[in-house]
């Protein structure tokens, strides 16, 4: 499998007032296309920072990140936004849906950045909702959905523009066990059947079992990698 993500000598330093905090130290990491990778580690180990850098939400202090052959660490803010719109889907722990929009409208959001017609946007959003099993909840507002359903809407939003990469930050962190398993099963389907490359941050070893491999971070460094025997449906 060709590498989708190539990270070399990656460092990230945050400045908090006069203090400089080095969050990531000289990380080297490759993620193959179609891979499902979990990032684990204690709080403050730098896993979310690494995920943000991979997703193009932040820029590194040193080193390089290539995603799909594109050096995203060299992109300016506007170009990076454009790149995210077409290449990456994001899933957050707290779903981060727009509370005033219906599920359908939430899923359509990334498509507003395309030249698709309103009818086409609606059609694609409907397909994405169908894929996550929520076609019958299209007109519901987030407050009318359970946590698991909201997370599935956020996954539909992440995949509606057909990105090559999904970055998921604790996608099951706010869910009960059953809902968490439903969401993880859905991610596995997206990875296995639709070829999406997934990088997921999690604290939950059970969630990590759904990934092909797990990378452990501690104090800003990769300290180990383990292949997982992925849970089968």
């Amino acid at each position: 499998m060709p590498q989708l993500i190539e990270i070399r000598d990656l460092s990230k330093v945050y400045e908090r007032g006069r203090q400089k905090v080095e969050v990531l130290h000289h990380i080297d990491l490759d993620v193959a296309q179609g891979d499902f990778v979990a990032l684990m580690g204690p709080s403050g180990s730098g896993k979310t920072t690494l995920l943000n850098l991979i997703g193009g939400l932040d820029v590194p202090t040193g080193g390089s990140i290539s995603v799909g052959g594109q050096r995203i660490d060299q992109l300016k803010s506007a170009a990076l936004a454009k790149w995210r719109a077409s290449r990456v889907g994001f899933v957050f722990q707290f779903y981060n849906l727009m509370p005033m929009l219906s599920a359908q409208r939430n899923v359509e959001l990334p498509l507003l950045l395309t030249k698709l017609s309103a009818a086409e946007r609606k059609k694609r959003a409907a397909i994405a909702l169908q894929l996550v099993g929520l076609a019958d909840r299209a007109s519901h507002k987030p407050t009318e959905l359970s946590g698991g359903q909201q997370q599935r809407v956020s996954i539909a939003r992440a995949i509606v523009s057909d990105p090559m990469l999904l970055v998921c930050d604790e996608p099951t962190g706010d869910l009960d066990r059953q809902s968490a398993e439903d969401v993880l099963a859905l991610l596995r389907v997206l990875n296995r059947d639709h070829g999406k490359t997934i990088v997921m941050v999690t604290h939950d070893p059970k969630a990590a079992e759904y990934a092909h491999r797990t990378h452990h971070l501690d104090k800003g460094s990769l300290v180990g990698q383990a292949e997982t025997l992925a849970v089968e449906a």
Partner: protein
Amino acid sequence: MKYLHLVWASLFRRKTRTVLTLVSIIAAFLLFGLLDAVRTSFSQAGQSANGAARLQTGSKLSFIQTLPLSLTQQIERVDGVKAVAYANWFGGAYQDPHNQVFSFAVAPNYLDLFPEVAVSDAERKAFIGTRTGALVGEKLAQRFGWKVGDRVPLQSNIFPDRSGSKNWQFDIVGILHATDKKTGGFFDQMFLLNWKYFDETTPYNQGAAGWYVTRVTDVNQADRVAKAIDALSANSDHETRTQTEQAATASWMKQLADIGLIVGSIMGAVFFTLLLLSGNTMMQAVRERTSEIAVLKTIGFSGRSVLAMVLAESVLLLMLGGLIGLGLATLIIPAVSAGSGGMLNLPSVGSGSWMLGVALMAGIGIVVGALPAWNAMRLNIVDALAGR
């Protein structure tokens, strides 16, 4: 346009707050429409074709200073003068001091100078021939239920008779009709009384006029005639100022109150308050949506798109409230004019006022949206998602 539903949904995310802010904006622009109509009405006072051919001569010192009646013959002799009449303010009230009546004591030929006021020859004759006769405007007559032949008492708030009583009796001998209801509504409210009755009854006015009205033979010569009239009293104890009817009306109103300044000051205060109020609403609205804006930026909305959406939201808020407010003013003004029985003749909200209003809506919208939009554009995604 494809972002409109998103902007609209964001605007009404907190319905109660947005509706309350909208009500304030509606009230502000309703007030703007009404006050602008008042200002326009005052600035248009005295503007008519007949008014252009008339000059008003009053004391240079103040409109309450009187002028000697002997000026009449001198003004008549000025080259370019067709006719001269004089008048004085009577200041009458009917039954209750709040029922003020636009009442003037006028020379017998006064109405000759006002062809836009229709009155029958028989009524004119009766007015001249009846010492206590009065001609009243049709709206005024309707207001108090007067008709020809009625004897009505008026209480002057200025002039007593020789016994010291301020109660005067008048016999209504005719009804005045403004031929142009749009510009001449004032005439329908007038109460004209005989100069002779007035001058002989009160000990306070003998031989003095409040102002002169002069009709010129050529409108283009009005300026020269005005200067010639003022030259008659130069360096005397009763120096005059002669102006066109429009300028005199404006000057008279300015001595009462500078309507433009008052309206401008009120609207300045209203819009400044509106600026703070809607600015606060927008700041709160954007602050509580920090994580949502971060999500928009995460999924690929550029900083400029976010800036434009917040500005659009702010302008939409102002436009929505402003258009409703100005629309209400447009509907209310004719009702106010009709309800005043001709006392107020407010013009409808004109295209100029609409354009100024829309410019104010857009301007205030941009100003109040600028800071939250700037903050939204510069929002750091990682910090915002982490709740920092």
